[in-house]
């Protein structure tokens, strides 16, 4: 297997709505930014040097277009080269990174574009005169259409089921512990100029915000966002040829699909996809599930909902089961804590542009490891970071990417 490095990162601002750009125009912008990022390091490449693309696009109904990837392929000038689309719910981004990794690791491509985009807020609910209910409806078709969609299941009620079951088992996360995630991630976003929802808020603000589905409040939930994110991946030979001094090596990719029917699971208070994806990624990277917190510097987690971030601390092995809530009370995942989680603001701070999100998270972790994260840079000592994606009905899909800056370690 070839070694694979991230040599370019391009992320557009995450915004509530781009009136001045279509999804393929956004994808073009992120691709251009990623190429510029490679060239900032002394290389001279154009889109003509990219040999293939792996696209992360979740939802055709958002884009008002089936097979949106082929239209992007035309717009970004990648005709007559292979392009593969990945769609894995909220985990689309992470899964796309995994498959772009495979494209290079397998030797199929030396230089591959990993490109995610989503533009959801063209959906519009005529009856309320607002956007969100129709965006949520476009997502709700991801629930099982026979048994679950007709019950009014949606993303928040799916995640909250698992969080409530976790609370029944462990007495955690409490509403206050969940609110701390929102305070942290909205706060971290203040230092990220690309974030949609930078806010200085308190636990009380979160608890007093509008109820969405018990016990999630408005500020416990990420906002749907529009954005694109791109990575350029290269094998070792290309890294040398382009004289990239600071490649961020992908050392582990792990993914798992757990049962999408929550009612079929042995334990409803678990996001099993997280556990299996994490163990697979850590094993590949030679890291230890029980000591992972000591082995990495930064984790960009998929905080679609605050309570789910807390459970993820446990399932990704940062703390024992039931102790995620206590860990955030002790400031563990804060910028200055034991293991900073979502220093860019995560989904709650940046917004969730589904296909782009996991690629943004991976790109953000790579920029952190390179020391290029700007005002939200955290301290890098071990040279390793993690990006996490989860989504789909019952959070059935998960993907974890482990990255390493071998220069930083020296």
């Amino acid at each position, binding site marked *: 297997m070839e070694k694979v490095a991230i040599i370019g990162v391009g992320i557009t601002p995450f915004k509530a709505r781009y*009136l001045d750009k279509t999804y393929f125009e956004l994808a073009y912008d992120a691709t251009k930014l990623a190429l510029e990022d490679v060239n900032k390091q002394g290389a001279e490449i154009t889109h003509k040097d990219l040999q293939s693309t792996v696209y992360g696009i979740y939802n055709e109904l958002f884009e008002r277009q089936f097979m949106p990837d082929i239209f992007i392929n035309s717009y970004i000038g990648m005709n007559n080269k292979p392009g593969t689309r990945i769609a894995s719910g909220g985990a689309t981004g992470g899964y796309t990174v995994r498959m772009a990794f495979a494209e290079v690791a397998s030797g199929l491509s030396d230089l591959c574009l990993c490109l995610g985009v989503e533009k959801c807020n063209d959906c519009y609910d005529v009856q309320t005169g607002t956007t969100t209910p129709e965006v949520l409806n476009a997502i709700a078709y991801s629930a099982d259409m026979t048994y679950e969609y007709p019950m009014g299941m949606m993303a928040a009620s799916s995640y909250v089921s698992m969080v409530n079951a976790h609370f029944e088992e462990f007495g955690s996360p409490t509403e206050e512990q969940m609110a701390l995630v929102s305070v942290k991630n909205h706060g971290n976003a203040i230092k990220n100029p690309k974030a949609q929802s930078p806010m200085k808020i308190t636990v009380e603000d979160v608890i007093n915000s509008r109820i969405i589905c018990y016990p999630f409040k408005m500020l416990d939930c990420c906002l749907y966002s529009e954005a694109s994110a791109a990575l350029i991946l290269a094998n070792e030979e290309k890294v040398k040829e382009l004289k990239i001094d600071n490649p961020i090596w992908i050392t582990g990719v792990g993914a798992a699909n757990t049962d999408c029917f929550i009612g079929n699971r042995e334990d409803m208070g678990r996001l099993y996809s997280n556990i299996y994806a994490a163990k697979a990624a850590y094993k590949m990277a030679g890291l230890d599930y029980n000591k992972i917190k000591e082995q990495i510097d930064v984790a960009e987690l998929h905080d679609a909902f605050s309570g789910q971030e807390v459970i993820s601390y446990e399932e990704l092995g940062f703390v024992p089961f039931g102790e995620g809530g206590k860990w955030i009370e002790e400031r563990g995942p804060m910028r200055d804590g034991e293991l900073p989680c979502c220093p860019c603001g995560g989904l709650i701070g940046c917004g969730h542009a589904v296909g782009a999100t996991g690629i943004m998270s991976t790109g953000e972790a790579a920029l952190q490891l390179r020391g290029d994260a700007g005002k939200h840079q955290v301290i890098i000592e071990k040279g390793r970071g993690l990006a996490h994606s989860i989504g789909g009905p019952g959070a059935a899909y998960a993907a974890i990417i482990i990255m390493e800056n071998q220069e930083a370690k020296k």
Partner: protein
Amino acid sequence: MEFQAHQIKDILKIDYRYTMGGQSKFFIELMNNKKLLGTKCTKCGKIWMPPRINCSECYEPAEWVEMKQTGTIDVSTIVWYTTSAFIKAIPYGIGFIRLDGADTAMLQGIFSESLIPSKVKKGKKVRAVFQKEREGKMTDFFFVPEDEYEDWIAKPEYEGGSE
């Protein structure tokens, strides 16, 4: 010059005659006879509810079995903000119900005269109530706390099941 965006109104709509395939019997019995059918694996004996006619674990056929119409709430929530298709129904309760004897839990609506978290909590006993007008869909029935059952089936639009 300032940028001016052009927007168009549009809608995507597809009509279906969707077949329930091997699961058809569940919906026919629900519609015609107010029965809830699960399936039992012919090899491991696991009882699937919602039903599947093949056991995903053993790769052997599963047989139809009639289920009890009482069960327990495994987990629930009350929804206060939702999709365009359901926004007129808020607030509504949904939860995963484990029918007595089933090895899996099914998502269903939980109706209650007092829709508060403690009323629809884990461990609460519930019982199925049926719409009088049924179409062979999941919305033909819902669950209510067992102590409210008689009140719900007394309403003109609903009735009890036939176990």
